[in-house]
């Protein structure tokens, strides 16, 4: 019997090839989309969970006024370990980068971290070689990741070898570890002993919050007690005269998806996107299932005769139900197999799209296979229910006449399902349009300085630092370069936060300000427009505490209560610096468009420079870079020349948005594809079931366009309804998303109009192909059988 069912199912599918293909492909694409998105979500949620007892690991964050900062001073880790028995282990982590010398070769490396020897008590990072208990004990010892060891030495057994960072000191390699998993928010290539940072390691101070502090609790549930104890501890510290900032604990596993904490270690994810992608996954799966059901129910009417015949041959209703469920299962399994194949084949593509390193091997676990089978069973149960239950219930007499008309209810359901599908599609189209236009807006918007033509070269070598004045002169020689200067932190990554006030007003008037210590030529090198006063003089004297020269931005002047013109010549304090405002710069976006322009103070302090910046002539990028490289080769031979365009620095701030826009756009497209497949199937069914009507109409003189219009009208109305439902939802969601940007586009009717037009066109084209086919059929054929 079973074999008989299978044969019939297979032959039914074969006979209705087009329909089967639409149904299977639609479901497979839907499943694949869903799997991709869920893998993404799973990966985002899996961050830092690979550590043993990861729930017991916390990072200590620091309150700076109303802002939360991930960095803490040196004292926090040792203090907490000493004073709180609940803290089993604590480690400080300091991030750095540098020039690594191995024998004669020099490499410019990032991800050079320092950590206490307790690092491995807090985290679970197994060593391939070396001993976790003492690899980081002595000063000037370092652990390399596998790829670094292979890069420098071409082998793994490099214990005892030496590398040099920035000329000195020399580090002895005491361990080799596997490269860090992609889902770790801590990412380093080198892990050196904190003891190597002699100055910091030997002092426990409350100032200079430059270190990440991670602690492991004996029991994750003691978190609340520990936080209370920390508050009490800080009170005691204050009583003894120190001025600690408040501390708070953040669960390690929450770090990746949290936002709003400054000096975050990695490019963090966003819970909103994770939720959004999860919703998208569910919506696409829903659409695919809806499609499936829709087509199955529509088609099932054509099987009524078979049902009648089988009943008259002695089939029980339960046997028929089984048969239809079985067919649904076969189809679903085919779709699941195809879907998995799509996922495996498309994994690389998706990884590129979403910026992930996901492995298709997750499908090869027995658990995943089980989930897939269970999923297939559920989908076929849902999708097969209508045909199974409805068809098997038809009275055989009616079934045999082949006059089973789908009931009013089922037609309504089908329409409802189409509305759901196109509603989701409409939402996705609008979403994709808005995200893409916001991105374009961020790229095209004027930032108030010459963002597109500034290149940055880090000063990462003491020799370079010493020879900077000569280097600047040499660099400025090229006609390709407009201006060369240097500063402490580059725009796009400006993090130096200080506070400022008018000189002479009390401390309580102090307001937060972003600080930019710089060389004198910085306004010219960035292309900042000054609206009052002048730039720094060409060679001002080295500042001491009271004769700093400041250029502030408009916002800063306004906050201090001056017009730009009034501000010039006034004295301000950015403690411990005091001095005179020489100029006021027109506001420019020195950080990403996520944040509104804050007050900014640029002051002349060449000791603090870390980056050379050079503005080049438009169209002479290559010459400018070549020239800078030759200058570098002259002043710091052997030091690798690395540079970044400021434009790219900003762009990196939008990586999350860019990723989202890519994903949303692609999946919007796929969702629409799935919806169209469904519409195609449904339209062809409608056309088929109305063949006779069309024949009669043609005999009565209806024209082909008239019939196409007649058949397409229904779908166009459905799409319009779907759109009407989607608009308010899209409006709400997207307004919220846009409010995450201080500078954003306005949601206008434009995107909605474009989306509606697109959707209508697609829906009309899809349904009219079928309508056209029906309309051009010879009426004699369609009327032949009664």
């Amino acid at each position, binding site marked *: 019997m079973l074999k*008989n069912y299978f*044969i*019939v199912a297979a*032959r039914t599918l074969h006979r209705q090839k087009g329909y089967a293909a639409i149904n299977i492909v639609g479901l497979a694409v839907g499943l694949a989309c869903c799997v991709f998105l869920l893998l993404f979500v799973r990966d985002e949620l899996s961050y830092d969970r690979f550590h043993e007892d990861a729930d017991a690991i916390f990072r200590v964050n620091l309150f700076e006024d109303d802002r939360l900062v991930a960095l803490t001073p040196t004292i926090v880790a040792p203090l907490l370990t000493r004073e709180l028995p609940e803290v089993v282990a604590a480690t400080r982590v300091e991030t750095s980068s540098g020039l690594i010398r191995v024998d004669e070769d020099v490499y410019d490396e990032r991800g050079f971290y320092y950590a206490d020897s307790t690092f491995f008590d807090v985290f679970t990072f197994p060593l391939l070689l070396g001993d976790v208990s003492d690899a980081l004990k002595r000063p000037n010892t370092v652990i390399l990741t596998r790829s670094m060891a292979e890069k420098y030495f071409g082998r793994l057994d490099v214990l005892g070898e030496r590398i040099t960072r920035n000329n000195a000191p020399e580090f002895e390699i005491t361990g080799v570890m596997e490269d860090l998993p992609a889902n770790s928010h801590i990412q380093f290539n080198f892990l050196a002993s904190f003891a190597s940072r002699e100055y910091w390691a030997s002092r426990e101070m409350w100032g200079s919050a430059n270190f990440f502090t991670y602690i492991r609790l004996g029991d994750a549930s003691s978190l609340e007690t520990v936080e209370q104890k920390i508050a009490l501890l800080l009170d005691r510290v204050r009583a003894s005269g120190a001025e600690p900032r408040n501390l708070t604990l953040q669960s390690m596993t929450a770090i990746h998806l949290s936002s709003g904490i400054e000096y975050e270690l990695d490019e963090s994810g966003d819970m909103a996107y994770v939720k959004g992608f999860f919703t998208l996954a569910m919506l696409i799966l829903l659409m695919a299932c809806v499609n499936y059901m829709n087509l199955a129910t529509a088609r099932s009417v054509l099987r009524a005769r078979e049902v009648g*015949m*089988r009943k008259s041959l*002695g089939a*029980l209703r339960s046997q028929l139900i089984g048969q239809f469920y079985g067919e649904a299962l076969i189809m679903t399994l085919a779709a699941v197999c195809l879907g998995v194949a799509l996922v495996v084949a498309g994994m690389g593509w998706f990884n590129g799209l979403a910026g992930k390193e996901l492995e298709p091997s997750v499908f090869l676990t027995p658990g995943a296979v089980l989930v897939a089978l269970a999923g297939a069973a559920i989908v076929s149960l849902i999708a097969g229910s209508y045909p199974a239950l409805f068809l098997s219930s038809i009275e055989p007499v009616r079934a*045999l006449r082949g006059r089973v008309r789908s009931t009013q209810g089922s037609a309504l359901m089908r329409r409802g399902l189409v509305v759901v599908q196109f509603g989701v599609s409409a939402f996705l189209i609008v979403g994709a349009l808005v995200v893409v236009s916001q991105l374009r807006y961020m790229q095209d918007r004027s930032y108030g300085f010459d963002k597109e033509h500034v290149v940055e070269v880090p000063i990462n070598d003491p020799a370079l630092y010493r020879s900077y004045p000569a280097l600047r002169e040499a660099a400025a020689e090229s006609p390709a370069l407009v201006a060369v200067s240097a500063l402490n932190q580059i725009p796009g990554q400006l993090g130096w936060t200080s506070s400022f006030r008018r000189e002479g007003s009390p401390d309580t008037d102090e307001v937060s300000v972003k600080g930019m210590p710089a060389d004198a030529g910085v306004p010219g090198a960035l292309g900042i427009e000054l609206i009052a006063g002048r730039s720094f003089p060409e060679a001002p004297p080295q500042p001491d505490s009271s004769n700093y020269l400041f250029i502030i931005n408009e916002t800063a002047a306004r906050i201090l209560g001056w017009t730009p013109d009034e501000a010039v010549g006034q004295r301000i304090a950015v403690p411990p610096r005091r001095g005179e405002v020489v100029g006021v710069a027109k506001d420019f976006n020195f950080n990403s468009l996520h944040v509104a322009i804050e007050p900014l103070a640029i002051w002349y302090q060449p000791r603090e420079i870390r980056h050379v910046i050079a503005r080049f002539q438009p169209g002479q990028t290559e010459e400018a870079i070549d020239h800078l490289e030759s200058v570098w080769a002259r002043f710091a031979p052997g030091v690798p020349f690395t540079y970044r365009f400021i434009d790219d620095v900003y762009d990196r701030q939008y990586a999350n948005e860019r990723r989202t826009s890519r994903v949303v756009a692609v999946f919007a497209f796929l969702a629409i594809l799935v919806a169209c497949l469904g519409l195609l199937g449904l339209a062809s069914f409608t056309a088929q079931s109305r063949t006779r009507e069309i024949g009669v109409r043609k005999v009565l003189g209806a024209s082909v366009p008239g019939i196409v219009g007649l058949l397409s009208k229904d779908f166009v109305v459905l799409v319009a309804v779907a759109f009407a439902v989607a608009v308010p939802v899209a409006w709400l969601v997207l307004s919220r998303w846009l409010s995450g940007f201080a500078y954003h586009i306005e949601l206008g009717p434009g995107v909605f109009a474009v989306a509606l037009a697109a959707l209508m066109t697609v829906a009309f084209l899809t349904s009219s192909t079928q309508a056209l086919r029906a309309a051009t059929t010879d009426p004699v054929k369609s009327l032949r059988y009664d």
Partner: protein
Amino acid sequence: MSEDTQVQTLGDPIYELRGVSRSFGSGLNQAHVLNGISLDIAQGEFVSIVGPSGSGKSTLLNIMGMLDAPTRGSCYFMGQATHELGERQRVTIHREHIGFVFQAYHLIDEMTVYENLETPLLYRKVKSAERKSKVAEMLDRFSMVAKKDLFPEQLSGGQKQLVGIARALIIEPRVILADEPTGNLHSSQGDKIMDLLSGLNRDEGVTIVQVTHNERYTEYGHTVVELLDGSINAVSQVERARSTNPSL
């Protein structure tokens, strides 16, 4: 028009219909398709039901086949009231006693001739070996061995109807209910089918109830029941002399 029509008896009655009525719809739209039909059919009989379009012929046949149920009155099949049967019992009767033949053949398009013949046996849970031999026997008997792997759409109308009859016969039914079995066929094909049915009736004692439009084919049976507007208009016996079956 008699209230209770006793058809010529050849054996125990296989069908006893008592005041069978069937209406469709309700209220003002109610259409009475059958009005108090009472009729006995004996085992081994060959009954032709005739009448104009819409007189209720097919409905009557469907009620006898338990594909439809009377709104009023009762129908007894082999002494059992059909309205008292549960789905399982009814299905059992379909599996074991009743073979259907339809004007539109109603073969399952997705199955070959062989598989179409096999299906009733599958529902009867006949063992594989027995199934094979029965299907083979049927194919042989209807000279369709060469066509066993063809699909219905590859057959002519007459061949399809042969398969339809073979499928009805394969369960060795007590009764074959044939709804215009020749309706879609050329006359030569129709003659062949009718010869086959009457042969089955004569040689194997299979009770046959057919609905037909074709007056010529009423002569193959013993009894003609004429319906008009849902009631029995006349019942007549076919004269034996006219019942000629030259080929058999």
